[in-house]
Every structure is written in structure tokens, then in C-alpha cells.
């Protein structure tokens, strides 16, 4: 919204007042001004929650106080449009340079540094490996890139400029406990900041494909989704640290995830079990257009992670239970994580000779009722307005009675399958995680 208010103010010279919920308004008047818009937009804070409230409550809000200034809300709005600009609001041009962070911290004991790192929000609140010069130098041997090479500049939330170097990533890799051989994967991961944040319980999943999996002993088999492997654990942890240190995620300051998500502890980092794919099923990165010999990292984003709970029953084919469970997902996208034994059953017994055929079947068979579909706020906020503007099938679905049945996964290309696991049980997860672009790990070797 700040971008839009800024455009109206700057391009058309029209004064605006920006309304924001009391849950996030501090971001608008704080970090967003300092690092993003540079424009001291006049915000008025609305009590949260406001969605779904009856009109009497909304009326009490506007008859109440602006949560920013403490003034009566409508008086604050009138002031926002009429009160002459202050000197700060008339400022233009380049700000003074930020105080640069020194490359080295003052010498201190390891215990003190551990505490300092926690206080600066540079950890996941587990102890880190202190990144001494020697350790970082050893880590940098894991890549051919120069330590002072800028990996990315637009790294902060909303793409604010937080330029960082290969050495910064190596420093974080040391802190997470990485081996130098992991560094190309962690650099590829860092190249994808800013990661997705939301006030909702969004989370991310890191899937690695290609030869690097074996080179660094990533686990794609038995227990791959648990805390059972060095590379999986440490690379996943690196993502958490990159999110906090490089992106600058700070709960309550630059991020406001109400519940957050326990999946964020290790970001579901694992490798696909390419060797156990049934004949005809391609590795995920190959499906996305990469060569089998490419090493690729893909970050998926989503909310839900539904466990099959038990193994596949003979009398109920696995795709049927997948269909049933997927009916609780939003329909915007899905990724199934399945044990190789499930993939074999689907391929050999059920006739899904490719991942794409399974996706096609699920797209045609997952159903839910219209009012449940539109009851999901992500669907409602992203697709509802498009339906109101005539985009099909959402326009037609909006006109349906609440109990009408729809097939929410309109696009089979939005349904993905990743094979992982150790074949000790025919189990799977249905998730609504959606992949971003695959990132070359080889480019960071």
C-alpha cells in the first residue's frame, strides 16, 4: 500500500492518508519509511482485527482513536490531508550514509560473543559456531567466488537494499555449523532473499536436486524430513540465519507473523530421492527444465503440511486419500511429498506412469464446496477480486451457491510431487507448498 500512496503523492501531487491495521502500522512509519519508500506517509492506525467485524464495531473504530497519534480517528484523517507539511515531510534527496557495519567485531570471549549474537538477533537461539577469521577463511574454500563479491543488493523485506557479500554468507554458514562443501548450496539459498513473509503462518521448504546431494551426503532416504542428517539440518538452519541477518527479519519490527510456523525452525530442507523414482517419473528439477546433471535448489512456499498419518491401505488407493486430504487445501497449488514405496504403487499398480499424470488426475478429482473455497482468506484476497473483475473460473464460482461443488485445482501444473523417504512405510504428506524458480547451485561452486 505504501507504494500506491507514494505514487499518488509523488506522481499526481494528491495528498493521501494511508490506513493500516494496528498490527502492522509500526512497519509503515518505521522501517518502511527508513529503508523502502523514503516518504513519511501519513498513516492512521485502525484497531485490529477489522476483517469480518460487524458494522457496529467498525463504526466504533472510526468514532474511536487513531492508534498512531491517539487523536480521534476522523480528526487524524482530516489532519493528514490538511495539516501543513513539517520540515521532515518536505525533505528530499539522498540521506546520510548508514553507519557501516565493521567487518570484524571487537575481540571478546566466546561466551560473550554467543550472548552478543543472541542479543543482535543473529541466531535461532541455539548456540552458533563463532565465525572466527580462520573458520570463515576455511569456509570460503568451498566456493571459487571471491569473498568481496556482492551476492545481491535488494535483499531486505520488500526488496530494500541490504547488499551482502560471499564472505557474509560464509560467515553465516560457519555460524550454522556448515562444512565448506555446503557453501555453494547456502550461497544459492542466500541468492533467493528476500524470503516470503506474512502475518499468516507461511513457511518455506528447501528441496535440493542433482549430483550435489550425494557430494555433500544430503539425506533423501530414511528419516530425510527429520533431524537426522548434517547437511539437511545445517543448510536448513542457514536459511533461518540468512532470513534474520541478511534479510533483516525481526519479529515485531519488520515481520509480524502472528503464530509463525514451526516448519521455519529448519525450513524443511531435504533432497529428492532421485535414485528411487519409478521409471518414467522425472526428478523435480528436470520437470522444471533443468538437466539431470544440474544441481538445483528450489524454495517452496506454503502453509499446510498434512500427514497421511498411516500407511497406504490396500482397499483404498493412495491417490484417493491424497484427493480427500487435498480437498482441505486452498487449491492455489500443492506439493505431495511421498515415500518411494507410494510412488511405486502409484506407478506400478495405479497406472500413473508420470508425475504429471498423477497431477492431472488430482486436478480433475479434488473437490470442495464453494463457500469453503471462498472461506480461505488467501484465496479470497488473491483470487476473489479477480473473480469480481470477470476472470474465469473465479467469476463463475463467485456466483455459485455455497454448497455447490467445484474443482479448485484448475491447473494440474500447480500440483507437484517430490519423492523422498526410506521405504519403511508407504506414507506421504499433502502440502500446499508452491515452488519458486529453481536456482543453480553449480553457479556458486
Amino acid at each position, binding site marked *: 500500500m505504501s507504494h500506491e*500512496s507514494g505514487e499518488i503523492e509523488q506522481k499526481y501531487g494528491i495528498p493521501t492518508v494511508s*490506513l493500516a*491495521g494496528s498490527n502492522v502500522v509500526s512497519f509503515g512509519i518505521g522501517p518502511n519509511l527508513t529503508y523502502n519508500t523514503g516518504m513519511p506517509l501519513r498513516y492512521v492506525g485502525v484497531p485490529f482485527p477489522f476483517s469480518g467485524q460487524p458494522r457496529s464495531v467498525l463504526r466504533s473504530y472510526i468514532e474511536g482513536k487513531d492508534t498512531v497519534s491517539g487523536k480521534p480517528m476522523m480528526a487524524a484523517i482530516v489532519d493528514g490531508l490538511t495539516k501543513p507539511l513539517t520540515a521532515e515531510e518536505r525533505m528530499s534527496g539522498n540521506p546520510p550514509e*548508514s553507519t557501516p557495519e565493521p567487518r570484524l567485531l571487537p575481540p571478546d570471549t566466546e561466551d560473550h560473543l554467543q550472548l552478543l549474537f543472541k542479543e543482535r538477533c543473529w541466531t535461532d537461539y541455539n548456540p552458533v559456531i563463532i565465525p572466527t577469521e580462520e573458520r570463515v577463511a576455511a569456509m570460503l574454500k568451498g566456493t571459487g567466488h571471491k569473498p568481496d563479491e556482492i551476492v545481491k543488493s535488494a535483499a531486505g523485506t520488500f526488496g530494500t537494499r541490504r547488499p551482502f557479500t560471499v564472505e557474509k554468507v560464509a560467515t553465516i554458514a560457519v555460524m550454522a555449523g556448515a562444512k565448506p562443501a555446503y557453501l555453494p548450496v547456502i550461497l544459492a539459498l542466500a541468492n533467493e532473499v528476500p524470503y516470503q513473509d506474512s502475518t499468516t503462518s507461511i513457511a518455506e521448504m528447501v528441496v535440493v536436486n542433482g549430483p550435489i546431494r550425494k557430494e555433500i551426503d544430503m539425506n533423501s532416504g530414511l528419516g530425510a524430513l527429520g533431524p537426522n542428517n548434517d547437511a539437511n539440518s545445517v543448510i536448513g538452519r542457514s536459511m533461518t540465519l540468512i532470513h534474520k541477518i541478511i534479510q533483516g527479519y525481526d519479529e515485531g519490527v519488520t515481520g509480524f507473523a502472528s503464530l509463525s510456523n514451526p516448519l521455519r525452525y529448519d525450513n524443511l530442507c531435504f533432497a529428492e530421492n532421485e535414485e528411487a523414482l519409478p521409471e518414467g517419473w522425472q526428478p523435480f528439477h528436470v520437470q522444471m527444465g533443468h538437466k539431470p546433471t544440474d544441481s538445483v535448489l528450489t524454495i517452496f512456499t506454503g502453509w499446510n503440511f498434512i500427514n497421511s498419518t498411516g500407511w497406504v491401505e490396500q482397499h483404498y488407493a493412495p491417490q484417493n486419500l491424497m484427493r480427500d486430504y487435498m480437498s482441505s487445501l486452498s487449491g492455489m497449488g500443492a506439493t505431495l511429498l511421498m515415500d518411494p514405496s507410494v510412488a511405486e504403487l502409484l506407478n506400478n499398480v495405479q497406472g500413473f506412469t508420470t508425475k504429471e499424470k498423477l497431477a492431472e488426475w488430482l486436478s480433475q478429482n479434488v473437490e470442495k464446496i464453494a463457500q469453503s473455497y471462498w472461506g480461505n482468506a488467501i484465496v479470497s484476497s488473491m483470487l476473489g477480486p479477480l473473480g469480481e473483475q470477470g476472470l474465469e473460473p473465479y467469476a463463475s464460482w463467485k456466483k455459485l451457491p455455497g454448497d455447490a461443488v467445484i474443482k479448485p485445482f484448475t491447473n494440474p501444473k500447480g500440483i507437484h510431487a517430490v519423492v523422498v523417504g526410506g521405504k519403511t512405510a508407504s506414507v506421504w504428506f499433502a502440502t500446499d507448498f508452491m515452488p519458486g524458480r529453481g536456482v543453480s547451485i553449480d553457479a556458486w561452486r
Partner: protein
Amino acid sequence: MDRRKMLALLGVSPVLVADAPSYARTASRNAPKAGAAVTSGLVTALNPAVTPQLAQRVPLAPRLSTLEGKTIYLVDTDWGGMGQNDGILQEMQAWFAQHMPSVKTILKVKKGNFVTDDPALWKEIADKKGDGVILGVAG
């Protein structure tokens, strides 16, 4: 002696003292005794923090001298989905009608969804001589 200098000589980080008084007390008890080599056990670590770049400052548009007789657009950004914001904006319209009846208010819904821009609407507001905009509600 200055307290910060004294603590530094005792091997206690002034940074920690500033931010964590309870820890500083513990650290002081565990600090090397007078005469011990204050540099022993110290390590130099790389700083993982990056330097955020400040945004270029952009001034706001001049404000109106009064709202009397002016046209104010209330723009629903569609945050949170259909019909989540229009109630608040309609209540604001009703407030203007009651308390500032000379103000003409026009309620518009942004095209696309809450993450997309609607430059055509901003141009329309300018072309139709909108005097001010109330935009929201982000949450």
C-alpha cells in the same frame, strides 16, 4: 576511571554491558583477576551483519488548506479479500456526510488484488480532480 574503560580492561564487552546488565554482572564475576593477561581467551569474529542502505527521501505532496468543498476518494485496496475493507470506508463516508457535508466522497475499489498496483485508478482520480485520497486498509 570511566566504567566502560574499566569493564573493558576486565575483559567485559561494553556492548554487552550496555544491552544486558544482568549478564554483565555475571560476566564481571567471571572476569580475569587483576594482573591476568586480559587478551587471553579472546577471539576475533567476523561480523555477520549487513549494512542496510537508507532510502532516498521523497517529500509529500502539499496538503489542502481545507476539506470544505473538496472531493476525497476512499480507495479499497482489497486487502484481506472481498468486502473486508469497504465497511470501514463506508462508515467513513457516512461520517463525512454527517459531519462535513460539503466534502464529496467517492468510494472506489482497486482493480487486481491487494498485491497489484492500479495505476489507471490513480490517473482517473487525478483526471477527475480528486483533491485527496484515503487508502486502505492494510493489515
